[in-house]
């Protein structure tokens, strides 16, 4: 029983077999070994199915049943870039670094294409996102071509940097699997504003490995705004050492299916992790935020606030696991997820999960689900504000509350714009 064109996992494995001698780093034994190992894992497990607990609410069947090719060799020529948020930006088209579109001149530290800097990446690649951890990480490891590599030396303030990912529609289904490696040495600082746009039948499967050393601070704002034909499955692994901070804020609004999966480990005392976000889905779309927080050291703090807005026949998922090791005394963990359902056909599945093995901890979580408040809506309308505008005001109020926690003003402005754009598109579609 052989299909004419291999689909899903088999298709990707076949592609790996055919491409492995051409992939970046094909002559580096360590990378070949890593990729081969990943292929074994991916062959054994394939795409996750809903029988796997972490994928109970998100069905990857549409991805597993499609056949995706590689992007075209190289997209040439001018490409419309999103509005710039920072002076320095790294631009990737179909997952490949485009130095001609990027503006990284004058930066003292290592920042640029991973494919062009593989030797420096060797000790770190696959250290946090191990091929055997998740099938999507295995897939990414097997086939990644490029990604952003940042290595900030001790004490350096890297300022504000942008990561722009653009997918260009080649007119047939295609997939790309960027691998981003971000390392901050002790006391370093960086704010990264990431924008993903793109169109076409596309699978964007990025994996991030983020290492925040002692006392370093990494602020990571993400705007996943591809069009409603795109599957966006991203996996982040972050390790935060003593006194370090990782701040993630993700706006997911646009793709047909978004999975925003974050694994953060607080590995040294007084480390902190903030994971916040707003995810929105319109008719026919699916958004999933799945976080896992590992409190492995004492005196660490984690804060999570996620907002979900669902319109039409759409589905949202929030799964948040907080694991407190026995050693992690005085852990301060907080998790909140709130969903706003704008239609009777929208559905949210929310699963908080606390596993606590230390006795002196403060951990709380909460969840709310509701429609727009009828009294609030009537109050606005009684003042002459038309119903659609009144709804928009209340949705914005709900979403803006999430963004208020973002202290970097440039980032907050960019995120707010992303939220408002989504709502404006809904209004136009309604």
């Amino acid at each position, binding site marked *: 029983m052989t299909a004419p064109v291999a689909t899903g996992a088999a298709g990707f494995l076949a592609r790996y077999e055919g491409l492995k001698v051409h992939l970046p780093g094909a002559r580096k034994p360590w990378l070949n070994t890593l990729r081969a190992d990943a292929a074994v894992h991916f062959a054994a497990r394939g795409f996750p199915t809903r029988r796997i607990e972490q994928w109970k609410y998100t069905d990857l069947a549409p991805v597993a049943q499609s056949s995706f090719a590689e992007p075209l060799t190289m997209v040439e020529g001018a490409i419309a870039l999103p509005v710039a948020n920072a002076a320095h930006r790294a631009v990737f088209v179909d997952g490949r670094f485009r130095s001609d579109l990027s503006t990284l001149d004058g930066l003292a530290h290592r920042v640029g294409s991973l494919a062009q800097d593989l030797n420096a990446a060797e000790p770190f690649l696959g250290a946090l996102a191990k091929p055997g951890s998740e099938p999507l990480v295995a897939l990414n490891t097997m086939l990644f071509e490029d990604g952003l590599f940042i290595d900030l030396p001790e004490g350096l303030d890297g300022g504000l940097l942008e990561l722009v990912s653009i997918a260009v529609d080649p007119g047939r289904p295609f997939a790309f699997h960027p691998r981003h490696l971000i390392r901050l040495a002790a006391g370093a600082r960086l704010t990264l504003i990431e924008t993903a746009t793109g169109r076409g039948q596309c699978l964007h499967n990025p994996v991030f490995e983020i290492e925040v050393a002692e006392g370093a601070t990494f602020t990571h704002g993400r705007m996943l705004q591809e069009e409603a034909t795109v599957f966006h499955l991203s996996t982040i692994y972050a390790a935060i050492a003593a006194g370090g901070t990782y701040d993630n804020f993700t706006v997911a609004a646009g793709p047909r299916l978004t999975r925003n999966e974050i694994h953060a480990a607080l590995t040294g005392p007084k480390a902190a992790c903030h994971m916040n976000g707003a995810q929105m889905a319109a008719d026919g779309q699916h958004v999933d935020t799945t976080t896992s927080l590992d409190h492995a050291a004492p005196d660490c703090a984690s804060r999570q606030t996620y907002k979900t807005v669902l319109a039409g026949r759409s589905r949202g998922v929030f799964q948040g696991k907080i694991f407190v090791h026995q050693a992690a005394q005085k852990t301060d963990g907080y998790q909140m997820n709130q969903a706003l359902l704008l239609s009777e056909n929208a559905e949210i599945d929310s699963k908080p999960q606390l596993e606590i093995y230390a006795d002196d901890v403060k951990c709380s979580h909460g969840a709310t689900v509701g429609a727009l408040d*009828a*009294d*609030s809506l*009537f*109050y*606005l*309308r*009684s*003042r*002459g*504000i*038309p*119903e659609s*505008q*009144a709804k928009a*005001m*209340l949705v*914005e*109020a*709900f979403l*803006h*509350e999430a963004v208020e926690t973002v202290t970097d003003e440039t980032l907050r402005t960019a995120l707010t714009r992303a939220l408002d754009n989504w709502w404006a598109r809904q209004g136009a579609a309604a």
Partner: protein
Amino acid sequence: MLRIEGLTAEIDGKQILKGIDLEVPTGEVHAIMGPNGSGKSTLSYVLSGREGYEVTGGSATFDGHDILAMEPEERAAAGLFLAFQYPVELPGVGNATFLRTALNAQRKARGESELDAMQFLKLARERMKALSMSDDMLKRGVNVGFSGGEKKRNEILQMALLKPSIAILDETDSGLDIDALKIVADGVNAMRGPDFSALVITHYQRLLDYIVPDRVHVLMQGRIVKSGGPELAKELEAQGYAAVQAAA
């Protein structure tokens, strides 16, 4: 002129308004008094179009227009304003944004030009000063963290900005201190004129010393059981509703 005839309405199948007949001619201020639960707020909600109230009979027209057939925002654009007994808190919606959006929505509906942020601020500050409200209340979320009295003043501020032709004030005096009561009354009196009318719902005769009504109506168990001049309020205060109803 507001004309209500034989108006009946129910909530969840329970009849609350049992045939209201009431006329408020343009330029007049009328007061409605009545015991708790008699249907005063229900009447104000039915007139302003809140969901969940089913009109089962009768009519309500304003200057000849059937207001019951309009959406709440259309009623507002037509000149109707309700000062809520319990103003709603809107976390995340800035008071200034709210007030300007409301004002501009109504101006737009009436074919007038919209105010920009500067023009609006100037106007709002002016009106707030008259109501002894601090500028700070523009920056906060709508009614969020406002004291009871501040919420009521915010209602009057909205009225002063939106300039309705008929205002229903549902217990705007409740919870106000004596100074605030005078300020609110002044706010209402400043609106009085040949093109403005009001329906003032209150439990206390004291308010009517400041806002002297043309007529006073007594609403009991979903019906207007008695109407009279300002002296009726004093009579109610002295004798209570039961005696007045018995005499009616």
